[in-house]
């Protein structure tokens, strides 16, 4: 019993281990909200595009990313699925976006899936995730995650197509929805 426990502890003792409490959501967490800003740097564009909004997480693990700048927009993120609200209708992304799963696992704090698909490397203020599978490498080179005060503060997704997405997150807090459902389909 002691041997098995030791092997298990050794196997999970990687660059993610110090940040488990920062990544995982409490089991009884209500709908939570986090204000964020985003920069998209495309390789074919000289200046980044800037966005801002609020992310919501439901107790079931659904994520709703609601942009309010430069214009209102909503994205529903589930495992293996990313839906965009367009003209009042939800549509999947036309191209396969394998890093959507990584973003979901990261924001949802699913350590098991992160460890299965990514190789974590320690950094000064957090960790870097490098894809294990070729299919992931085709889409993403690496993802840098910075954690300050036991909370994810920034995420930078370096795409294989040279695009870079940088997210900055404010403190998380219980959402005040006043009857509105950000996860509605």
């Amino acid at each position: 019993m002691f041997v098995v426990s030791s092997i298990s502890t050794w196997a999970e003792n990687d660059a993610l281990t110090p940040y488990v409490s920062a990544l995982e959501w409490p089991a009884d967490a209500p709908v939570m909200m986090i204000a964020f800003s985003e920069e998209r740097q495309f390789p074919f564009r000289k200046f980044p595009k800037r966005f801002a909004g609020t992310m919501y997480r439901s107790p079931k693990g659904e994520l709703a990313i609601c942009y309010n700048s430069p214009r209102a927009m909503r994205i529903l993120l589930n495992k293996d699925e990313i839906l965009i609200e367009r003209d009042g209708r939800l549509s999947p992304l036309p191209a396969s976006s394998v890093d959507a799963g990584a973003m979901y696992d990261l924001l949802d704090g699913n350590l098991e899936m992160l460890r299965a698909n990514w190789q974590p490397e320690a950094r000064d203020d957090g960790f870097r995730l490098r894809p294990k599978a070729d299919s992931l490498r085709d889409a993403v080179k690496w993802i840098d995650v910075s954690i300050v005060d036991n909370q994810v503060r920034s995420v930078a997704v370096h795409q294989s197509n040279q695009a870079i997405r940088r997210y900055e997150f404010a403190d998380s807090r219980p959402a005040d929805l006043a009857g509105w459902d950000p996860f509605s389909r």
Partner: protein
Amino acid sequence: MKNLWIALILLLGFPIGYLLTVNWPTAFNSNILELLPDANDSAAAREARQQIRAHLSNPVLVKVSGFDAPRENMVRQLRTAIDSQPEFGAPFIVGDPSEAASVFETLQSNQETILAASWIDSQFQRFEEAQPETSFPEWLARESADNLDTFLEQPMSVAYSEHIPADPLLLLPGLFAKLPQLEATQSEAIYAWIPTTHDPMSAGSKAVIEESLDLVLEALKRADEKTVLKASGVYRLAGVSAERTQQEVSQLNIAMVVGIFGLLLLLAGRPGFLLLTFIPLLVAALWSIVGGLLAFGQIHVIALAVASVVLGLAVDYGVHLSTQRGSSSLEATWPKVRLPLITSCISTCFGFFFLLLSPSAALRQVGIMAPAGLVGALLAVRWLLPHLERWAGAYRIRPFLERPAPRLPMKVRLVIPLSTGAIACIIIVGLGSFDDDVRSFQIPIQEELEGYQQLVSEISPGATTNRWLCFASSPADLIDNLKQTRDQLGIDPLLPIAAIDPQAKSWQTFIAEQETFTDAFRTELEAHGFESTAFQPFFDKLSNASRWQSPESVEKALTELASELPPPLAPVLLNKGTTWLSVYEVPDGTTLPDSLRDFTLELSERNSLNSALMTARNAIINSMLWGVIGMMACVFSLYGLSRGTQALAVPFWSVSLGLATIVITGQHIGLLAIIGVVLAFCLALDYGAFAASSREPPASIRISSITTVCTFLILSLCSIPAIAQLGKVVASSVFFAWIGAELLCMQSPIKLSKTAHE
């Protein structure tokens, strides 16, 4: 005795021996499509129709709902469960991102050929409406750079960013917005389109498919016990229709036999009489089935239902001989009935042969089965009944059947038929209208149909019911045909490649000023903050823009697209062998112009089949006129002018009244009503022939008419409206034929006696 054995072998031994060799599971056919008439289409149109019918009727449509487990888990479970069923191919899950990805890759490699020209055409129209001061290439360059800049604000731009250097015009994102089947469903339910390896129209496929669906549901329930699976498809409609038709045909046949023998027992009072009527019936049934199987290899269940009316006619033959026996023997009685029976048999066979003109394969089978049965019945009456007399024993027809009807004055006997006949003709001409709807040839399966339509509307919301099918033998011809359709009707086909004419002003302007556009677009991209050098993949392709619409590019693009489109989208561009198809929507109420008929079909077969029914009905009416002339010649040559006129008066009068009865009840006269008129005319001529050659009230006519009316009244209870109408027409006509025969027999016995011995 020798004749008896020959008759037994020929009439009973041969058909029974043959039927013992028949493979019964395949002998009967319940395919509803064979009940429908063949449309009046060309060979190419028939091929196109067959291909699209096969594609659209193949899938099993499935809705999975009620589960609490994550939707994506259930999608995975559903795919695995379906993959494990050999009857099913790979499913298309509506709104699943992986389905969109596969279409995306196919379109991406041909995007300029398929999409660019129509996009430029639409931009050119906007340019002309806006009337800016700049040239078209400069205006287009600025608009395109603006659009690209705005697009980057959309989240989907992140996933699409690697494709943007090759598609800065954003052709593909624009197309995907027009494909509802690839959008995520807003419902929690999962909708799947599952191809099946079974012919959905074949017997037994419903059971096999439903068994596989049960196993799929079982697997899903292991993931979430609450899962509910609802499925439908043409396999189910065909299966339920076939089951109900077979069930109803069996019930009608049993009811007819029980009705006939019950009445005969009631009217004759002794079972021995039944033996004399049962043998012609048995021979007729055997010969009818053998005739159908020998001529067609298979018998449709509807053919079996309609041909079963021959049972009533076969019984009549036995009745005619048996009731005329009196105190002599059947052998001695035969000469008395020979002429009217042979006349009746020939004329009735002649009437049934009209069904060979029917557009429905099932009804053409009746055109062989019924005459075969009638000839068999007549031979049985002549060669078997006299030998069975000893077993039949004594019997006596109920006295009231032989009692003369109250004699009416001559004036009354003339006035009644003449006035009622005239009124009937006025009703038919004034109120009667011809109409056929192919739906009246199908057994109602409303609940199943509504379930199927509900599922279709949930999978493809907003799909219009009015869709046309364009067909051709090559991709280039298909494009030409679609362009003609667009130019003539102003309809924008879903296939964007068809929306552009290489000679169009927009395309010519773009090609002529391509270099100007290239320079302007580079400048605008830089001005909007883009690195114009990053878009070299696009500019490389742009330098060959004149070849985007070449026949080789078009053929390559369409061939690849047709092979990759997922099943629900495949009707947009379907290629099977040398047949190329494209289905598009047209506004409700649009009628197909003659100029497009060479390469266009309405996807709904209802109109074309109704047209085929109308053509067949008109053909039968025309042929019927010649048939009546032939029958009149036959009757006059056998009966002479005076008795021939009397014999023919009965069918003309009774059929007029029978048809008027249908018109008064507010029904349109359909194809089977016309066929019923032909049958009723032959039956009525049978009565007319007997009445004209009899000097006594013909008990055989009374028995025959009672049993025949009963038989056809039972047929009129059929759920298939067209067959029910046939039953009504014949039942009412035969009833009036009986009245006509009674009126005819009220003539002076002396005069009749004279004519009978002439």
